[in-house]
């Protein structure tokens, strides 16, 4: 089964359990096992074409190894490096497989507050929009002769000239978004009907509980 077909809660459970186990289990063996599982997940067909997710995970984790070696001896570098790589690979895989709209549908289907899912999904969709706007503001201010280089004071003034229009324009969007939410009946306590709830099989539910049990058991074993 590819990552995209799994229930969003299962994806979150796997991405949460792997780093937890990496930190709980004794290093370096525990970290080596969890990093192997996490890297295999990034190779799952359907996560992204080719080796994109696997490569992204390795490239994101690589600088941490360099800085760890700069600051620590070899055994500590390996112990912490394997944990961080597990965390990075798990979340890179999660970001590639978790569709925000499916997460919203899953929380609605479960009867949870739609607010939390809305906040998460709305932020994910707002970031690229605001980043694009920020780039346009930078270009526009440069066309008007703004120089973002030179002394510290000059750079701070340039930062203000770039950041202020972005933040103010984003705040003006709040009213528009509030109106859109009200129009769609987004009031607290309202029960919503999911349009296409993701399938949540008994096997997946059992797997999520098993992951939680594994983390608790590992923690108890380590604390003994």
């Amino acid at each position, binding site marked *: 089964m590819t990552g995209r077909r799994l229930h969003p809660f299962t994806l979150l459970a796997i991405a949460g359990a792997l780093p937890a186990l990496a930190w709980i289990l004794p290093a370096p063996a525990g970290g080596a096992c969890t990093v192997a599982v996490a890297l295999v997940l990034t190779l799952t067909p359907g996560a992204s074409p080719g080796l994109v997710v696997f490569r992204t995970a390795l490239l*994101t984790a690589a600088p*941490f190894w360099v800085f760890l070696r700069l600051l620590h001896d070899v055994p500590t570098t390996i112990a912490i490096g394997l944990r961080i790589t597990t965390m*990075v690979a798990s979340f890179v895989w999660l970001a590639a497989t978790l569709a925000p709209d499916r997460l919203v549908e899953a929380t609605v289907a479960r009867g949870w507050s739609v607010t939390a899912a809305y906040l998460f999904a709305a932020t994910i969709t707002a*970031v690229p929009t605001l*980043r694009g706007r920020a780039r346009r503001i930078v270009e526009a201010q440069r066309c008007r002769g703004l120089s973002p280089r030179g002394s*510290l004071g000059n750079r701070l003034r340039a930062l203000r000239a*770039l950041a202020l229009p972005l*933040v103010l324009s*984003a705040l003006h969007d709040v009213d528009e978004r509030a109106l859109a939410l009200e129009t769609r009946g987004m009031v607290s306590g309202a029960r919503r009907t999911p349009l296409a709830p993701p399938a949540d099989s008994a096997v997946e539910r059992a797997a999520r509980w098993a992951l939680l049990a594994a983390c608790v058991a590992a923690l108890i074993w380590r604390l003994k």
Partner: protein
Amino acid sequence: MSIRLLALIPVAAAISLALSAAVDAVALPLFLDTTGTILATALAGPGVGIATGVVTSAVNTLRNPTFWPFVVVQIIVALYAWAAARAGLFRSFRTAVPAGLGLGVIASVTSTPISYLVFGCTTTGGIALTTALGKALGLSPLGACFFGSFVSDFGDKAVTFALVTSVLHALPRRTAARFPWALRAIGAA
């Protein structure tokens, strides 16, 4: 929570994550990743500020997973910003910048144990390099870790407070009045 405040949270979180484009343009060693949290708190109070901080960390985690454990810092930033807003410290740069410097110290004290215990002080390249500098200066591992966090946080939070003050003063009064805390934060109510 009103719909307007609910709509403010993702916008404020996205501001924190989008400001990196402006920071890259001026090539300053700043993060400004708490701007949205501080702004949301100054506009709408601690509940909205904390929610903004948590959402910012959650979404940032998808880009760089090492951000998640630092969600505690976002919550402390929101609580500190609330105290600053209640005291009207956003009324001018003269009050906002020292308040930001104070937050820099608190944020680095909070983030140091997380950075040290969980990541061995290697959360971002800049902090790792300043930690290495602290180590080269003869500081203990924990001291070097604090040095790295302090160098990055101290100026960053002062600039963030100054930027939020600029935004609050640039907001039209009619717009500011729609948010429950905005006028009090700038000392106008």
